[in-house]
């Protein structure tokens, strides 16, 4: 058997649909934790509403947010996986089929950046990144739809042999610029080093990591902790109307590079939507979120 066009098309459409109707368990857990320590009354009301609304979406099978964003996928391909058919096309066709059948319908969010025309399809849409996993007999696909609300505040700057304090100050500067805007409490992804494109990719993928899971290296985990503490001293709070809970997690990753060090910072809003599943060579599908 093999991992077919049909299987990838169906799963990618389902992952997108699922991601719109549920706030992932790790984010809900983090929100409850933030609620228990929040000192600002308005912020506590907002956090309580967020939890109630995510519960209502899940129970009623409704959209968490009306902005379904655009489809963004990460496909990690096992080197022992057997693929069959036009797998890249499967993403495009899966999204088109989902748009045709999903209830309630999706708003037109796919935007041509040159003409600002909006619709449900466009050049390079869905946005897919491919990676390899050595020896695995499956593909692992993550869907993390992205919208303007938190997407527009990501930033990247390139430094030359920066010390840690320079890097950490830059993260805070980006957070200050985003301020009340990116639907806090946010997950912040930070990618350090590598190259221009690689740093951005690491930052994005860092936001996919389960909330509560620290980086494997103690030095990086400590950096995540102190950055989270620093961000939560800014006071922007839930929905940016004031409070302690500006961020539920800061996830950092790094790659070795040359002396020029890109630092990329990006945000996921509080609903932190993402879903993942694997398809095995025998056709079995396994949800892993």
């Amino acid at each position: 058997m093999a991992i077919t066009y049909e299987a990838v098309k169906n799963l990618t459409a389902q992952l997108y649909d699922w991601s719109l109707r549920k706030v992932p368990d790790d984010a809900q857990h983090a929100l409850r934790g933030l609620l228990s320590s929040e000192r600002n009354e308005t912020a506590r009301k907002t956090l309580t509403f967020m939890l109630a609304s995510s519960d209502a979406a899940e129970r009623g099978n409704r959209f968490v947010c009306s902005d379904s964003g655009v489809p963004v996928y990460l496909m990690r391909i096992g080197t022992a996986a057997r693929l069959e058919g036009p797998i890249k096309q499967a993403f495009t066709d899966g999204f088109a089929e989902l748009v045709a059948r999903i209830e309630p319908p999706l708003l037109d969010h796919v935007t041509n950046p040159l003409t600002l025309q909006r619709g449900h399809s466009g050049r390079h849409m869905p946005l897919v990144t491919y990676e390899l996993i050595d020896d695995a007999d499956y593909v692992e696909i993550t869907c993390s739809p992205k919208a303007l609300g938190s997407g527009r505040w990501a930033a990247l700057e390139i430094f030359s042999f920066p010390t840690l304090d320079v890097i950490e100050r830059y993260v805070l500067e980006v957070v200050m610029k985003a301020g009340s805007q990116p639907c806090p409490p946010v997950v912040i992804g930070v990618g350090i080093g590598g190259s221009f494109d690689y740093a951005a990719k690491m930052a994005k993928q860092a936001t996919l990591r389960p909330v509560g899971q620290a980086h494997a290296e103690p030095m990086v985990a400590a950096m995540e902790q102190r950055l989270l503490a620093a961000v939560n001293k800014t006071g922007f709070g839930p929905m940016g109307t004031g409070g302690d809970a500006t961020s539920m997690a800061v996830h950092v990753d790094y790659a070795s590079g040359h002396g020029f060090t890109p630092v990329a910072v990006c945000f996921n809003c509080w609903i932190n939507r993402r879903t993942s599943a694997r398809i095995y060579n025998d056709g079995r599908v396994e949800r892993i979120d």
Partner: protein
Amino acid sequence: MPISAEQARALKVGDTVLIDGDIVVSAGLPTYHRIAEYVREGRELPIDLTHGVLFHLGSYSRETPQGDLEVLYINPTTSTRFNPLMPGIIRGLGLHAVGGKGGLDAACAEAMQEAGCVYLSFPGGGSALLSEALRGVRQVAWPELLTHYRLVKLRVEGLGPATVGIDAHGNSVYDDLKAGSQERLQAIFTELDQDRAASAQASSNI
């Protein structure tokens, strides 16, 4: 809703409200450009907004088999996108409530103070609960635009909670938070440096 200038002026930053009545919404930048143009030229809008409320909320509305309009869901969009257009719209129409998420800038707050107008912050990503307040579509204008760009008058009951982010007296939680965080930034950097030094010390002791 409707809300008077006096009622708007009685609200303070940080208050939370639930909204009953008719509201007008659109999430489209082209729509706000068009509204601003109508206001500048003194033309009559297809939905009367004089002394009304106008929210940066997206909505999905469609025709039912019976020929009525139904609205399926609503949610706030980022208000700061409309910053350059809102002062003219607020003053020109004498709006008493605007809203969305993320706030508006100081120029908008100034126009709001003159008009007796508040800014209401709706929880982003709260579509499931916010949409439960929908009671019907009263009017849809500019149907040639994308669904969420249309100017839509909705009947709502218990919409919210919405937080007063900017009141009609020139107070803005957004400006206050920005200024407050900027004031604290040096102290935050200092604590960050201390944490880093402590962490380096701890790992060198291992």
